[in-house]
Each structure stands twice: as structure tokens, then as C-alpha cells.
């Protein structure tokens, strides 16, 4: 019986649950003995010129070994995102100007960690304040410039080469337009950012860092340090969550390595939660204007999406993400005319990067809001409008007006399955009863349909597999698990071919000397690239073993089969174990799998919320999700990914928002103020199975990591608005926190 598709328990967990994980800050390594501790003095103001920096008192503080300013760091400012204007280069330590609260200015190195903050408090920096610019629409005006030499705050754009078509909606009976805010959120992984570095006598630096992709982090750090990439040996210990914000390297990693070079000592850095809430990349932060048009029979004919993306102070990956938003603009719908554009501006805030979904949730949120608004305008059921306009299953592969080619999908079926599992008709009846009775607690039902891109941008991955003479197996992968369970899943894939139990298979990742090539874990890419590569490697190893065994057993390759870790001659008792073959010469293969294109998982969510009409508080009562990512390798792992994604989706819809005051001060920079949820705020999730394979890889698998977030966010937002639709409310921006919902109810009453 195949192990694929079964609920194999995570082999990672016994250690995590007993000894605990070993995160970068937990490392005990003799090379780090006596390491210096880095404390960064960060800007307390959003936008200012630095007029003086006095570190003399700090240098005299107990335990201080070095205090280093931007003038002394010996690293040139760098453009952190390919394609960003050269004027937006970020210094590793600010010298002339600071551009967001939390920007590093001075590095303090102490013998003991606790001495660092005391010394940092003695650093005196004079700031000559400049006006902050927090709102992207204000930034667009260019009245306050972050980079004077650039002459504008606009740092990027897509689809700006031609004007919007003024006739786009000419054929439409109904046209609805709405401005939406897809708010800024914090990734807030439980393990904050951390790095440690030491230079060896061989002139190489060993850098331990918490990242989602060791190899590209190595490349980035080497480039910033001005050394060849093989000078950097990057190792990822256990990584405690990333959600996209740990893709690649942060400038602090290079700073740690450079300070180790300057001092000739090992240096460690582990940021505090307060630093993390301003220093780590944040997500979303788009202002969107949507316009949708169609006929009163429910046909959508045209859709326009205009995106204004906030890049934060220094452009990072967030600058690029509107590309995905535009590509996925039409979502699951077959819309005859679609146009979109995106502009990205810098603001005096924390930089924006990837966050679970990264550009695609923003597209889904926009089109799903548009479908609801259109449905409300023509008085048709929102689920019905969706089903009427989805791409028909016989049209795949389907190239959309967004420019993407969807591999496979059955969108109406996904919607139907979700509606049926939720008892949609029953919910609508209950909603009507409550309205009839004038209940204080209103029922709202939100339906979303989504399609997303997984494995986008990095279609290839490496794997190698080796059987050892003791019968154990080592798998090397270029993916980089930080909670996903690759140690279990990749072992299952190897076990399927080799017949070796998963307990005997060790999966290694995240050491650039051991695994020089790999693209890491992001964009829900791992299974369909790295997993398939492991599966392919195991298959190739079987063929290699058969060829070797054919000689030993004096049999023809065609008569051989591999089962339970041995090569057997079919129909006989003659066999040789893989271990025995490995004793003679190394039994090892290395391979690469390249799908050449991304896949497009899809699904539908139905959220049921209760809204207290007196207080505005919305609570998710149920959420039913169909998340079709093709055949499921391990339902336990896949369900876990869906659960986490749904939780984050609900969180964005109802609770989370990074906010700044007008001076650019963060006002949600602690966990008391930044409202990410606990289990107490979430319902149990109803997961409905559906599996439509992709033709793009031999397992037929797509990615599942971000699906929950992409589907849940609009479903929950829609449900809250639906609960209030009888009051004439058509839209409320996220997060639909009690205050905002109450204010919308008050405004609706005022209008009535």
C-alpha cells in the first residue's frame, strides 16, 4: 500500500515537544563561544536628518567592546530589491538621514547581552525632524520626499505604459466602483530575526541566520559584503515561522557578519519583539480602486483594478508584489475585459515584503469585493453571480486577461461543495428569520472563490538522496522548512520508491556547503518543486540500484523490483538490500526537477459570522473551506497548513492592522496593541476535500501553504458586510474591528 496520501505523524515533533527546537539564538557551538552581542540603536523618529552622533559615553560603558557608526561600518549602501531606483539604496547604519522608526543607526557590541541596552542608551544622536509621510496617497503627491535625489516617491509601477480605456464599461448596464484598503499587517513570527557570524582562518564566514532560503540569503549577504558567494557558509538552524517576512536576507545579517570581521570576534544578534514589530518586513499595504461592470442578468463584462502599493521606506520585495496582484486580478472569473495598473510609493514606514499569499490575496480581496458589490447592485445572490461568471472547466489550460495561464480548475464545483457543506440555503433562511425578529445579533454569510499561483517564479528545485551501508537514507533538499513538515513529507516521498520506513530517512536542508543550490520555501512552492524533486531522485535511485543489483544478482534489470529497502528478483527469494549495495560503492543520486511553470490551486470559502449590532463586534461562528491543491501527500500536514492560513485570513479580516500616527510613530508595536488572534478568537474549521491534479508534475500536486489566507480573508470580510446589508451597508474596510463596524452602523442609521 502506498504511503502517499496517508496521515503520517510529523517526525519532527518528538524533538520539538521534548528538547525543543534549536533556533539561532539557542545555538551552542564552540565557534560561537565568547561571542559578542549586538545591540542596535534604532531611530525613534520616522523622518529626520542626523545632525550629530556621539558615542563617546557608550564606548566607556561596562562590557563595551566596540561602538560602530555608519561612517565606520565599511559597507556601501545597497539597493535591497532588484529593479528599485539606485537612489533608494539603504545604508547598513544610517548616516545622514533616517526614514522610518526602527532604522538602525549605531551598532553596540558588548561582552554580555544585558550590557548592550545600557550602553545603547548612552549613545547620543541629534535628529533634525522632517515631516513624515505615512499615507501612500500623500506620498504620491511628492510634497515630502524620502529620497530627494530621486525627485519622486514613486519607485515602481506596472501597466503604466498606456492610459486606462475610457470605453471599458461602455457595454455595461451596471457599473460599480469602490476604493478598498488592504491594510498593512505584521508577520510576527514567534521566532524573531536572529543571526550569528564568525570568520574562520580560511577567510570564510560562517553565518547562522533565521531565513526561509539559505542559498539566496547567502548570495545576498555575500554581495552586500563584497565577497564571492562561496566565502559565505550560511546555515539555518530551526526557524520558528516566517510567513514570507524571512525570505532572503535582511541587512542586519550582513551587519552581523561585517561586525564580526571588524572585531575579529564571533558576533550574535537576536532582536527583541519591539525591534521585530518595526524592523521586520510587513505585508499587504495596498490601496485599491476597483470598478466592475456588467449586465443585470448577472454577466460581468469588465473589471478594472488600480493599485497604489506602499513599499515602506526602502523598497524590498513588496515593490514587486503588485505584479502578482495584477496577474491574478480576474481571479476565477472569465471576464471579457480586464485592465489594471499599479504604482508603488515609498513612505516613512517599515518596508513591505511578502506575507502569506504575497500579492495574490490582494488580488482576490479586490475581485471578491467587486463581485459582492456587483451582486448587491443588481440584487442577485452573491454565490450565484460567482458561479455564473467562473471559467468553465473545459477551458483549461486557460489564459486570463491578467496574463496568467491557469493549469487546471473546477471553480463552480468548488463553490457548490462549500455552499452545500455550509448549508447555504439554511443559513440564508436563518438570516431572514433573525432580521424578521429584529435580533440584536445578526447573521452574515460570506462566500469567496479564489485561484492563486504557487511555485511562481522559482519552478525548479534540487534534491539528492543517498542510501548508507547501515540502511539509513539521507535526503538533501533545497527547500527550507520552518514549520511545514518537510522532514516528514520528503521522507514519505523517498519511502514510497525505496520501501525504507520514514524513521530511517533523514531530511537535511539549509546548509549552503552541504546544499549549494536551492530556492527555499516560499510562495507555497515546496511540494510541487522540492518534493517532486525528492520523488524523482528516489525513482532515479531505484533505477541505479537495479542496474547495480543486476550485476550482483546476475539477473536482468527488467526482472528486478525494489521493495522494503531491497532489490528483489520478481517471483524469487533472490534479493540484495540497498544497504548492501551501498557497501560496495556509494549509492547516491542527485537530480533537479523543473516544472517550467507555476500551478494554480483554487477553492471556495463560506464564512458565517455573528455581528452584535449594538456593539459592532463580529465573531466567526463557522468557516467552511474547499482548498483544492491537487492530490494530498499527507492530510495531517495539509490540514495544518489550511488551519494556519485560515487563522491568518480571519485575523486580517477582523483584527490585525499595523498603524502609525501622523508623525510616523508606530502605535501598534507591541502584542498588547497589535491584535493577532489566539485560538479563543477562532472557530473550528470545516475542511472539505477536493483534488484536481495539475498536469505540470508527476504527482499532480499544487501548493497549499497560502490558500487558507487567500480564501478566508474575503469570505470573512464579506460575511460581516453581509450581516449588515439590510442596513444598506455595502462596504467596510478591513480590519472589521468592533469600532469600525459600529461606526459603519451609526453612519448607516444616520443615512436612513
Amino acid at each position: 500500500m502506498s504511503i502517499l496520501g496517508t496521515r503520517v505523524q510529523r517526525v519532527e515533533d518528538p524533538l520539538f515537544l521534548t528538547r525543543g527546537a534549536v533556533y539561532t539564538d539557542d545555538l551552542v557551538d564552540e565557534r560561537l563561544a565568547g561571542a559578542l552581542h549586538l545591540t542596535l540603536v534604532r531611530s525613534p523618529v520616522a523622518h529626520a536628518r542626523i545632525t550629530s552622533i556621539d558615542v563617546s559615553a557608550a564606548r566607556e560603558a561596562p562590557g563595551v567592546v566596540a561602538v560602530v557608526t555608519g561612517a565606520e561600518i565599511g559597507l556601501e549602501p545597497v539597493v535591497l530589491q532588484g529593479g528599485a531606483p539606485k537612489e533608494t539604496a539603504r545604508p547598513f547604519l544610517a548616516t545622514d538621514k533616517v526614514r522610518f522608526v526602527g532604522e538602525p543607526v549605531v551598532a553596540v557590541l558588548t561582552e554580555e547581552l544585558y550590557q548592550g541596552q545600557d550602553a545603547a542608551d548612552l549613545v547620543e544622536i541629534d535628529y533634525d525632524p522632517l515631516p513624515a509621510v505615512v499615507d501612500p496617497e500623500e506620498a504620491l503627491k511628492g510634497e515630502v520626499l524620502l529620497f530627494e535625489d530621486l525627485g519622486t516617491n514613486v519607485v515602481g509601477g506596472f501597466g503604466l505604459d498606456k492610459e486606462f480605456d475610457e470605453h471599458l464599461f461602455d457595454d455595461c448596464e451596471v457599473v460599480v466602483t469602490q476604493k478598498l484598503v488592504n491594510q498593512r499587517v505584521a508577520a510576527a513570527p514567534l521566532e524573531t530575526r536572529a543571526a550569528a557570524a564568525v570568520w574562520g582562518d580560511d577567510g570564510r564566514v560562517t553565518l547562522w541566520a533565521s531565513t526561509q532560503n539559505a542559498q539566496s540569503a547567502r548570495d545576498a549577504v555575500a554581495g552586500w559584503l563584497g565577497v564571492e558567494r562561496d566565502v559565505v557558509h550560511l546555515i539555518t538552524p530551526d526557524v520558528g515561522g516566517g510567513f514570507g517576512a524571512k525570505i532572503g536576507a535582511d541587512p542586519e545579517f550582513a551587519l552581523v557578519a561585517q561586525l564580526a570581521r571588524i572585531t575579529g570576534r564571533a558576533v550574535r544578534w537576536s532582536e527583541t519583539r519591539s525591534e521585530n514589530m518595526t524592523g521586520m518586513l510587513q505585508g499587504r499595504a495596498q490601496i485599491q480602486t476597483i470598478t466592475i461592470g456588467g449586465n443585470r442578468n448577472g454577466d460581468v463584462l469588465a473589471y478594472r483594478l488600480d493599485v497604489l502599493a506602499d513599499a515602506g521606506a526602502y523598497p524590498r520585495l513588496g515593490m514587486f508584489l503588485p505584479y502578482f496582484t495584477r496577474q491574478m486580478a480576474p481571479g476565477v472569473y472569465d471576464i471579457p475585459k480586464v485592465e489594471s495598473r499599479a504604482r508603488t510609493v515609498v513612505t516613512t514606514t517599515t518596508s513591505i515584503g511578502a506575507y502569506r499569499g504575497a500579492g495574490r490575496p490582494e488580488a482576490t480581496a479586490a475581485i471578491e469585493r467587486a463581485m459582492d458589490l456587483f451582486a448587491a447592485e443588481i440584487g442577485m445572490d452573491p454565490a450565484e453571480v460567482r458561479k455564473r461568471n467562473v471559467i468553465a472547466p473545459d477551458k483549461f489550460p486557460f489564459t486570463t486577461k491578467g496574463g496568467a495561464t491557469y493549469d487546471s480548475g473546477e471553480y463552480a464545483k468548488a463553490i457548490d461543495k462549500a455552499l452545500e457543506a455550509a448549508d447555504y440555503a439554511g443559513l440564508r433562511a436563518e438570516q431572514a428569520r433573525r432580521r424578521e425578529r429584529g435580533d440584536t445579533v445578526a447573521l452574515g454569510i460570506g462566500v469567496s472563490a479564489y485561484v492563486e499561483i504557487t511555485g511562481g517564479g522559482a519552478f525548479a528545485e534540487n534534491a539528492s538522496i543517498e542510501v548508507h551501508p547501515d540502511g539509513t537514507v539521507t535526503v538533501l533538499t533545497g527547500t527550507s522548512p520552518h514549520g511545514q513538515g518537510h522532514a516528514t513529507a520528503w521522507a514519505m516521498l523517498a519511502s514510497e520508491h525505496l520501501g525504507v520506513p520514514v524513521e530511517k530517512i533523514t531530511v537535511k536542508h539549509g546548509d549552503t556547503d552541504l546544499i549549494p543550490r536551492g530556492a527555499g520555501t516560499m510562495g507555497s512552492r515546496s511540494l510541487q518543486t522540492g518534493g517532486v524533486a525528492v520523488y524523482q531522485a528516489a525513482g532515479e535511485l531505484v533505477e541505479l540500484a537495479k542496474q547495480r543489483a543486476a550485476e550482483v544478482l546476475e539477473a536482468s534489470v527488467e526482472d528486478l523490483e525494489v521493495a522494503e529497502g531491497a532489490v528483489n528478483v520478481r517471483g524469487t527469494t533472490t534479493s540484495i538490500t540497498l544497504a548492501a549495495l551501498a557497501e560496495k560503492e556509494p549509492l547516491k543520486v542527485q537530480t533537479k526537477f523543473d516544472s517550467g511553470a507555476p500551478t494554480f490551486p483554487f477553492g471556495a470559502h463560506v464564512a458565517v459570522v455573528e455581528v452584535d449590532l449594538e456593539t459592532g463586534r463580529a465573531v466567526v461562528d463557522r468557516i467552511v473551506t474547499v482548498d483544492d491543491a491537487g492530490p494530498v501527500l499527507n492530510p495531517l500536514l495539509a490540514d495544518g497548513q489550511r488551519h494556519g492560513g485560515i487563522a491568518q485570513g480571519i485575523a486580517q479580516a477582523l483584527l490585525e492592522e499595523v498603524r502609525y500616527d501622523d508623525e510616523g510613530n508606530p502605535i501598534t508595536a507591541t502584542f498588547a496593541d497589535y491584535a493577532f488572534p489566539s485560538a479563543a478568537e477562532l472557530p473550528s474549521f470545516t475542511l472539505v476535500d477536493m483534488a484536481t491534479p495539475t498536469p505540470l508534475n508527476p504527482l499532480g500536486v499544487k501548493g497549499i501553504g497560502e490558500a487558507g489566507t487567500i480564501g478566508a480573508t474575503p469570505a470573512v470580510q464579506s460575511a460581516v458586510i453581509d450581516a449588515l446589508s439590510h442596513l444598506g451597508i455595502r462596504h467596510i474596510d478591513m480590519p472589521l474591528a468592533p469600532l469600525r463596524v459600529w461606526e459603519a452602523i451609526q453612519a448607516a442609521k444616520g443615512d436612513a
Partner: protein
Amino acid sequence: MIPVGFEYVRATSVDEAISLLVEHGEEATLLAGGHSLLPVMKLRLAAPEVLIDIGRLSELSYIRVEGDEIAIGAGTKHRALEASELLAKECPLLPAAAHTVGDPQVRHRGTIGGSLAHGDPASDLPAAVLALGGTIVLRSPRGQRTVPITGFYTGVFSTVRDPDEVIVEVRVPRTGGAGWAYEKFVRRANDWAIVAVAVVDGRIGLANMGPTPLRASAAEAALADGASIEEAAALADQATDPVSDVPATAEYRRHLARVLTKRALTTAAGAAG
């Protein structure tokens, strides 16, 4: 997230804690559960030179009936209040309020005396004890005094407690069968109250409606004069001074105070008997 350096002394008795307070003067701060104090120290918003730990004094941990009152040792943990069968029977408002404090980890560390002394207007127990009309017993080298909670708070995070005084006990009436309710409005289960309303025996305590916990006196008076619950609750925000912050505007807080008071009074009316 590393506090300024400090001395740490663990007191072995209340008397020793008082002498240590006398010895170190205003540089010293009492440490009990630490769940309010340590975070502000880690953010360097507070930098006491000496911490006097009274968290392990068993003499401060008790719940017992004394005449018409219940005496609660100041070091009694929220979890003990929550789980007390005696309180469930004699003063059910208090365990209900304690149950909403933070999360289980916090409730296993935090103490009633620490919560009252800290004086966060958004805290649960001060509003509950205020509604109960409780008293606070303080001990110092000058002896022991009893301060009604109505006169205990002087502003945000400030009380009439002298620097050399230790809260040793909180006394609340045995409310028995009197109607009660605790209505707390939060975004997340473990948050501080955006607004909370404690009702018992016709008295109404408000959390986070001003710099200190407040009584909704106008609403109480209206009730006493025979007003309906709706009429009385409409007065719940009178003489309050709520702040505007991330989760709520002052106007929204006023609205919540009225709604929650209506709900609490309705529940209390149903529970009386």
C-alpha cells in the same frame, strides 16, 4: 527588552518587606506576580533600583469569611479567586471578573493586591472591587489602616498608598444572593478591557472609562429611584472621561458603557434571588 539593572530582595515576611521599603525609600518597588511591573521594566518605562519580592509570602494568600465580609490576602492569585468555592457562593462577581484577566499563565502569577496597587484603569479587579464597595487594608511602620476603594485611586496608575505601605488584604462584602454580572468588552480573549462593567447589588463599577475605575453613580441613583434598566443604563457614561486609542474612541467607549451596563443590569436582575 532588557530592564535597567536593579537589586532584588526576597522578603520572608510582610514585616520584613515593610522594613525593606523603609530602608530603600522611593527607589524600591514591591514585586508580586510581576505581570504588570516586569513588562514596563523591560520597556524601560519603569526603572526601580530595588525590587522587594513579596510574591511567595504564604501569609498573604488566603480567602476566608470574617463576619459579613470576606477577607482576601493581597497575595492571592487570580487563579485562586477564580477557583474559590467560597467566593463562588459568597461573592460570585469576584471570581467571574478574575476569570477574564489575561490568560491562564497570567492568572497563575498575578495577584489581587498587585492588580489593585498597579492601578491600571483598564484592569478587571479594581472595577469589580469598586462595585463590591470593598476596602483595602494597608500596613506600614505606623500600623494598619483600612481605605475604602472609593478613596484609593488618585489617578492613572496612582493610589493613596504610601511608599512604605504594603497592601495586605482586600475585604469585600458577602453579597450572597444579590444579583451580579460582569460584562467585559475585548477584541481578544486575553486583552485588557476596552470597557468593562461590574454590577452587584445595584452598584455599578466601570473599567477603562476614565483615569481610575469609576462608579456609574448617576445610573445607580436612577435605579434606586425606580428607573428602568434602560433608563438607568443610558446614564452609565455620565461623569466619565474615557480616552481615545487604537481599539476605541471616547465616544465609542461611552456607547459601550451604556450597552454593557444595560446587559449587566439585565443579567443581574435575572440572577438575583
